[in-house]
Every structure is written in C-alpha cells, then in structure tokens.
C-alpha cells in the first residue's frame, strides 16, 4: 500500500507531468484560460490515461513482449487513437450526460503527448499492472492539479498591466515558470515520507 501511495504522490507532486516532465504543454497553455474548461480537459485526460494504460499494458506484455518491442510506438498510438474514438462513440450512444461533459475534449487527447508518454514511461520504469494504473491516474491527477492552479493564475493575469512585448504567450510561459518553481519545493518529499 505504501508503495502505491508513493507512486501516486510522486506522479502528482514531485514528477508532475506538465511542470517537471513537460508532457502535455499544448493543452496546458491552450485550455487553461478558464477554470471550467481546465477541469473538463483534465478529467478527460485522467480518463483516457487510465483507459489506455489498462489496454496497452496487456498488449505489451502478451503480444509485443520483448520480441516486437520496436513496434511499441506505432501500435500504442494506433490503439490509443482507436480507443478514444470507440469511447467517444459508446459514450455518445449510452451515457450522453458524460459525453456532453467530456466528449469535446476526447479527440484532442489522442495527439496529447502526455497519454503516449505515460504509457511508454510505465514500460521503461518496468512497473507491474497495478503500479502502472496508479502511475497513470497519478499522472492525470497531476495534470489536473497543474491545470487548475494555472487557470487561477491566468484569470488573475487578465486584469494585469503587462509590458507590451510580454503580452500573450511570453507572460504565460513566465508565469508557468514561477508555478513550476513552487513545485520544485516538493523535491525529496516522497522519499522523505516513505524512506
């Protein structure tokens, strides 16, 4: 149990996907303008991350194994893309309420490097199935934490008087840099807690 909590906390705080691994920067910069879209997007990311880990883990373990390790990239991206399509169709048909909340974000996530990244990282880290699931969900939650925090920062920034040449993306990146500094403070936290 201790190990799973450590994996979860590491993925959320010390090795945050957005702020320390730079995965999923596009949605982080693009969709974090408003709180509700940030929440919607990151819920969809958690969902897709967990689902694609659940599907790609057995594929890697039982079909690709080490013999066809070189096919990982191409197989995973195709599996994730078709999975997302499938989920979108199923949700639309059977759970329209959930589809209305997440549907629009789903196609965007296919080409989100955080999803392919987490799946590949689970393999490089040689995690077992349960650990992989915890790592993926933790990664998704970390994405959500970063998005929600940052949307707050951005809403504040709207009313600020920003030097002309910094307006737009540059100031957003510098703000992201400061948020990222705050996450540096978590370094060593998990090791300290769980030894």
């Amino acid at each position, binding site marked *: 149990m201790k190990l799973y909590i450590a994996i979860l906390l590491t993925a959320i705080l010390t090795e945050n996907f957005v*702020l*320390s*691994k*730079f*995965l*999923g*920067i*596009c949605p982080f*910069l*693009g*969709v974090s*303008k*408003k709180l509700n*879209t940030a929440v*919607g*997007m990151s819920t969809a990311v958690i969902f897709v991350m967990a689902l694609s880990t659940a599907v790609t883990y057995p594929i890697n373990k039982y079909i690709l194994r080490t013999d066809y390790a*070189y*096919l*990982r*990239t*191409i197989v995973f*991206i*195709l599996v994730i*893309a078709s999975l997302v399509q499938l989920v979108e169709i199923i949700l*639309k048909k059977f759970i329209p309420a959930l*589809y*209305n909340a997440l*549907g*629009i*974000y789903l*196609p*965007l996530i296919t*080409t*989100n*490097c955080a999803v*392919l*990244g987490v799946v*590949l*990282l689970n393999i*490089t880290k040689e995690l077992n199935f349960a650990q992989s699931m915890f790592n993926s969900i933790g990664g998704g939650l970390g994405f959500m934490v970063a998005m929600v925090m940052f949307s707050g920062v951005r809403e504040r920034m709207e009313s600020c008087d920003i030097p002309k*040449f*910094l*307006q*737009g*993306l*540059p*100031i*957003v*990146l*510098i703000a*992201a*840099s*400061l948020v*990222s*500094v705050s*996450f*540096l403070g978590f370094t060593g936290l998990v090791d300290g807690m769980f030894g």
Partner: protein
Amino acid sequence: MDEKKSLRKEFTKGFLSENPVLRLVLGTCPTLAISTSVTNAIGMGISATMVLVCSNIAISALRRVIPSKVRIPAYVVVIASFVTIVQMLVEAFVPAIDAALGVYLPLIVVNCIILGRAEAFAGKNPVAASAIDGLGMGIGFTMTLSIMAAIREILGAGTLLANLQGLLAVFGDNPLGGFNGFNIAEKFNLTPMTIFILAPGGFFVFGILMACANRLAEKKGKPKAELKGCSSCPMAASCSLIINGEPKESKQEEGTK
C-alpha cells in the same frame, strides 16, 4: 527561375518568418524538455528533421490516394513508421543520444510540428516542395532548440556542447581529437545557476525568447505569436471551440446531425 525562387522561399520560411517553435508555437513539449544541453538539442533536431522530411515526402506522394476523411489516421501511421525507423537508427548508431532523449524520442510521433506540416503543407503540395518545406522547418526547429539549449546550458550547467562525443559516435571513436565541449564554469571559476536546466528555467527562457521573437515580428509589422499556431494543428477546429468556451452548442449541433 520563378519555381526556384519559390522553392527557396519554402526553404527559408521555417527559419524566421514561420519558425515552427517561436512563431507557429508547435512542438513545445520537446523544446522545453530537451533544451537542457546543446548536444541533446542537436540530436533531437536531427531526428525530428529526418522524420519530418521523410513523412512530408511520403504523405505528399500519397496525397491523391489517401481519402480526406481518414487522412489524419493515415498521416499518423506514416509518421509513426518513420519515427520507429529513426528510433532504431539512433539506438544503433548514437546510443548516448538515445539514452539522453529517452521517452521523448518515440514522442516525436505526437510532435505537432510533424502532423501540422503534413496537414498544412504536404497534403496539398507536390513532393519536391514538401521535402523542401520539411527540411526548412526541421532546420528552423533545430536552430531554435539549439539556441535555447545554449542559453540554458551555459547559465545552468556552465558548459557548452558537453558530451559532444556521444553525438559524434557515428564517426568513430575520436572524431574531433577528443574535443568534448567547453567547460566555461570551470575555466572562469563560476558557479552555474542550476535552476536554468531545471523545469522552471525552461519555461522562463522560452518565454523570453518568444518575447524577443514577438518584438522582431512587430518591427516587421507582423502579428505576434499566439496559440493561433494551433491553426496548423489538425485538431484546431475543436480546440478553438474549447478556448472560446462554447463547447456545449457545437455538441448539440453535432447531435442533431
């Protein structure tokens, strides 16, 4: 003559006026993650350029065959195949770079520069122009990545071109007479500012570089870079809906169809 001129234009536009990173705001993830050392940046740039040129050529050659409805999945398959090839080449010939790039090497698949160029250019233009476009964009990407990496490496680690030997492993054991980068910090007895090679430094340097690019563009009377860069991303249509905050309506429209 005219054709030559336009080809040259396709080639050079990626350097400044349509620089993929600073002007089109594509491929931000690898830019931030890999720009901790110039050697890695060059390795990443060359790999991405190879994928970009090959996939542009293949997609442009197949542009009349691929039905437009399934073009995105088709592009992704083409790109993923070339990424796999490049991944194997890097693993075989420059193992040090493979280790340094890690998961970011297979992640070239989802680098928006490549899918973006396939969608915006290669799918509509002849093979030669697409190849040139890919090469120009790739060089623009490599240059930007290297400049950013140079700033971060000098300030953050006090070195420049460290571990160059790893990248040059293709050319044998000792290609530059044992030259393995400069160690500025040691030479002048300085303490490097480590934060620049950590995550916050990446965001900060990128922000400052983009501000400079905006300033230059403004002087030439061009609009500044916004996440509008998404317009070359195939997902732009649904993405801009989210950014403008009207996802609900479009949903209902889709439903009535």
